[in-house]
């Protein structure tokens, strides 16, 4: 017999989650904004909260950001209790709030300086850091410009730079790209992707499916303060909808009549005011059958299922109107 191999050391790589929430509740008076959710976010992960207006995304983010007290349940952020260690937690977080909350009267640089000083960063190091960050978000030439004079997309980029001033371990982004044009959104996604590559944990909320699919390793769908589904974008699509969707548009006033004749088609039919969505595993044959049944839609689109379809299926409502 050989001597037994040394007993392997217990696995220490299973690090503590960045966020751990159990039965998390937020109430404002009688109104329940977050109705008991469980969330766990691992280090380095990109995690998303997806949901329509009023789902409770921002309320959840503010609790995780240690700026809003938890009504019920337990919450640990970076292994600490936000109620007791708020300032210590916030010192290691970056936050992009839903509203920019920039000081419009001051310059880009001064906004960052004041914010950076709140973290007690030395002035000299701060000035260097501001240079790097403005480079990172492509605002270097706007350093001395008043915030007032920036476009919406530039302000959003500035807020991202602001959130990174303390070199945070985790960044909370509440609707980082809402209101931006497609090009500005892609610039932001690229920056966020680079952060993720550096190992920064990202938590974001969004109404946009493509954003969630681009940025999130894992996400939860929220509705009415509850989590209604959870998984990777792929998993959610696989679990909650079929592979493809056929969109049918009918001339005004003809959709009603057409619906009866679509009965039984595909796996499921969702009716929107302006079109009908047929979920199916084979778009082409479904479309052929539509025509076969003598229907003549004014327009048809066959596409892969998206998170939008997942959301529609789960809640019967659309995310963005």
């Amino acid at each position, binding site marked *: 017999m050989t001597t037994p191999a040394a007993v392997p050391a217990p696995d220490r790589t299973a690090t503590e989650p960045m966020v751990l929430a159990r039965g998390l509740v937020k109430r404002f008076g009688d109104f329940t904004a977050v109705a008991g959710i469980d969330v766990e976010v691992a280090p380095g992960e990109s995690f998303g909260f997806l949901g329509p207006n009023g789902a409770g995304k921002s309320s959840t983010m503010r609790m995780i950001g240690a700026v809003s007290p938890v009504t019920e349940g337990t919450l640990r952020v970076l292994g600490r209790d936000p109620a007791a260690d*708020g300032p210590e937690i*916030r*010192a290691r977080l970056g936050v992009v709030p839903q509203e920019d909350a920039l*000081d419009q009267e001051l310059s880009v640089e001064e906004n960052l300086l004041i914010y950076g*000083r709140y973290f007690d960063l030395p002035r000299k190091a701060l000035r260097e850091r501001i240079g790097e960050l403005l480079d990172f978000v492509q605002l270097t030439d706007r350093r001395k410009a008043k915030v007032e004079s920036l476009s919406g997309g530039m302000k959003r980029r500035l807020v991202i730079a602001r959130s990174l001033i303390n070199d945070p371990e985790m960044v909370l982004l509440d609707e980082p790209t809402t209101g931006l044009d497609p090009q500005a959104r892609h610039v932001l996604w690229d920056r966020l992707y680079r952060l993720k590559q550096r190992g920064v944990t990202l938590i974001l909320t969004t109404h946009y499916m493509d954003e969630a699919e681009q940025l999130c390793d894992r996400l939860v769908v929220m509705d009415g303060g509850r989590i209604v589904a959870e998984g990777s974008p792929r998993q959610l699509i696989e679990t909650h909808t079929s592979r493809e969707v056929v969109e049918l548009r009918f001339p005004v006033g003809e959709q009603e009549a057409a619906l009866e004749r679509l009965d039984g088609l595909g796996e499921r039919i969702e009716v929107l005011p302006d079109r009908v969505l047929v979920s199916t595993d084979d778009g082409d044959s479904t479309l052929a059958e539509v025509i076969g049944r003598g229907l003549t839609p004014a327009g048809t689109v066959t596409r892969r299922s998206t998170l939008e379809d997942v959301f529609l299926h789960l809640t019967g409502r659309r995310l963005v109107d």
Partner: protein
Amino acid sequence: MARSVTLRVVEGHARHYRHTWRGTTFSAIVTPVLFLSAMGLGLGSMVDSGRSAALGGIDYLSWLAPGLLAAAAMQNGAGDGSFPVIAGIKWLKTYDAALNTPVRPADLALGNLVWATARAAVAALVYVLVATAFGAMSFGRGLLATVPAVATAAGFCAAISAVTAQMRTEQGLAAIQRFLVVPLFLFAGTFFPVSQLPDAVAGFAWFVPLWHGVELSRALALGRAPTGPWAVHVAVVVGFLVVGAALSVASFHRRLHR
């Protein structure tokens, strides 16, 4: 309570001030000077010819100047307890941003208070220089008189910021000006002794922190005893500040930590 982060908030105010000082500084410094010329010199020439015994044999300008020092400081403090606070909460929402850092609501409340106190001190100092030039006080005594005046300013800033932090709209600010600041400015012993008021009203002065501040400033500037015991006047001014600061911290916390 005091943390270095509180000072960082003060620093933020200072940085912001570099861009906005023109408007506020003008009114904080020029207004009392206008009052001093119009009331002290203009009105004073009439008062002095009437030889009013109520002033204790002192010329009106010298009697008015320290009272105005305290009353103007109160006005500055009250202003800094309202506009910057509603701006931070509502107009600019700068508090929202700050709260995502190690800053706590208490740091915002105390940071605003410290900054307002510093501003009131500078305004008081400038006022004393001007009053000295008018021959209304001696510079040394005037400096002493700024201490209770600035403490009064701080007390009002704290107390009014506690109220402002609970406001949903800015309409309350005008009400504070109209129904609190202006009446106090006029009736708390600044322009005439409260003893000139009907007895029932005059007794009420003991509950008015500004009156105690005015009494202390005037006593120090003129080098004579105040109306009441020193200890009572000091206790009210200091007590008002301490209670005001505690209320302000609690109010900020309640409004901002939701």
